[in-house]
């Protein structure tokens, strides 16, 4: 990583980014309105909001998979055009290539960048070991559990050494214990080189336990960013331990008092079949 070039600068900066989708009947659905958000270099930011509020939409904008209707996206102080080449994206749904073995799934990022296959496989084996699946390289994704697939996904993204890590409820489908284990693994890997992380979740506890900053979004449509808290907890952290701390509870109560209303609003809207389901 070229620390000199990027140190101190802002990794991701969304400035008044508005995202709208054209619906089938020519109406326009505004998912996110005038979102202003920055992620500093080496900072771990979690976005929390009710379901369907456009958290993932915001992440897709940062990834360059979606263009904002208005506003700007800057990555390391340069306007983003096309895909965000500095970012690695861990998707919510299964995104591994089902026809490739675990090790090939991890190695592919290097291979398509032109690395020799032998080298790519060697590095992939190293990453498989880092995520605790060193002996599972020749398994196909369907032979692995949900948690194991997420670990492979993490290795697949991290092997390319992206400067920014975008994560869309990556541990959403996992059971509570596996989530904690994955959270600790993520923190451990992140601690090694402190990438900028934008982590989307609907779980406030997970957000506080992992992040340096927690950003709250209002219920959609036209979701806005309505709160931004710094997490005053020391690192390194242990996810399962940190939930017992007093500071954790205080912050949780404070944020929840804001988030609760939005969750109720979001729930009320989602039970009325809104126009255009955008999550």
């Amino acid at each position, binding site marked *: 990583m070229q620390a000199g070039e990027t140190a101190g600068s802002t990794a991701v900066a969304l400035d008044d980014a508005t995202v709208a989708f054209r619906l089938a009947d020519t109406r326009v659905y505004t998912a996110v309105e005038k979102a202003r958000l920055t992620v500093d270099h080496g900072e771990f930011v979690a976005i929390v909001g009710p379901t369907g509020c456009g958290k993932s939409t915001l992440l897709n904008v940062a990834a360059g998979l979606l263009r904002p209707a208005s506003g700007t996206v800057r990555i390391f102080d340069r306007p983003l055009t096309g895909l965000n080449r500095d970012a690695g994206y861990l*998707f919510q749904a*299964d*995104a591994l290539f089902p026809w490739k073995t675990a090790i090939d799934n991890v190695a*592919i990022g290097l291979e*398509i960048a032109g690395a020799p296959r032998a080298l790519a496989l060697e590095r992939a084996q190293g990453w498989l070991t880092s995520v605790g699946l060193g002996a599972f390289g020749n398994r196909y994704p*369907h032979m692995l559990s949900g948690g194991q697939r997420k670990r492979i996904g993490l290795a697949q993204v991290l092997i390319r050494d992206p400067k920014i890590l975008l994560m869309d409820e990556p541990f959403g489908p996992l059971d509570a214990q596996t989530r904690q284990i994955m959270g600790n693994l993520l923190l451990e890997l992140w601690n090694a080189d402190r990438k900028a992380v934008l982590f989307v979740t609907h779980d406030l506890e997970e957000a506080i336990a992992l992040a340096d900053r927690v950003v709250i979004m209002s219920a959609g449509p036209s979701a806005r960013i309505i709160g931004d808290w710094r997490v005053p907890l020391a690192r390194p952290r242990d996810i399962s331990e940190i939930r017992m701390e007093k500071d954790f509870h205080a912050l949780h109560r404070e944020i929840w008092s804001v988030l609760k209303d939005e969750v109720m609003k979001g729930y009320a809207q989602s039970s009325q079949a809104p126009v255009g389901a955008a999550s």
Partner: protein
Amino acid sequence: MSRAGLLLCQLLVAVVALVLWQVLATVPVFGRILLPPFFFSNPVDVGSQIVDWFVRGVIWKHLLITLWESILAFVIGSIAGVAVGFWFARQPRVAAVFDPYVKMANALPRVVLAPIFTLWLGLGIWSKVALGVTLVFFIVFFNVYQGVKEVSTTVLDNGRMLGMNERQLTRHVYWPSALSWMFSSLHTAVGFAVVGAVVGEYLGSAAGLGYLIQQAEGVFDVAGVFAGMFVLSAFVILIDLVVTSVERRLLVWRPTAAEGRG
């Protein structure tokens, strides 16, 4: 049921059917033979006809011709189906233009094409191969088209975010997906390749299993017709076994294929 028990029951069905056929075709019931030998022959005659074919070796030539026609029809139809399916799926505009014609061609009963193919390509193997190709092509084409169209958007986005360009997406995402759908239609495609070959032979040829059956029918040799049918069934089952083993090798990454290994 255990494997042996199942096999025993399956054999029993065949034995009962054959015995019933033999009895009804030879022993009078209330003074009448229910299955007149002229129309129904009997298992012993059919069996001896089959044995005779194999002992004299005449059957091998016909089997080889039919096998060769089926293989050619399958290979040519598959290659064309994969190529066109892939092309259409990646170029929606082309697909939209050709859509009504594809539907029209697929709606046509293929048998009516046989005389045209015979006229164009003669009585040799190529008119049968052509008939098989028209059947195989559409199965593979529709499957590959579907396979490329239905690649998960998440997997595609993941490929893009990992840095793949369009060419690499084609190679690492679209292509494997299309091939997996093609392989999942393997049984049907191979089956239709054989159907094309045999129907073509039946309608006009000088060799092959279809020819053998048609010849026997021409001289009211019912035993010959049945014998041809049994050889054909055994032939198809053998091919199917080969296809199944190929499929297991190719689709190890698929949950269903792997679970079926049992």
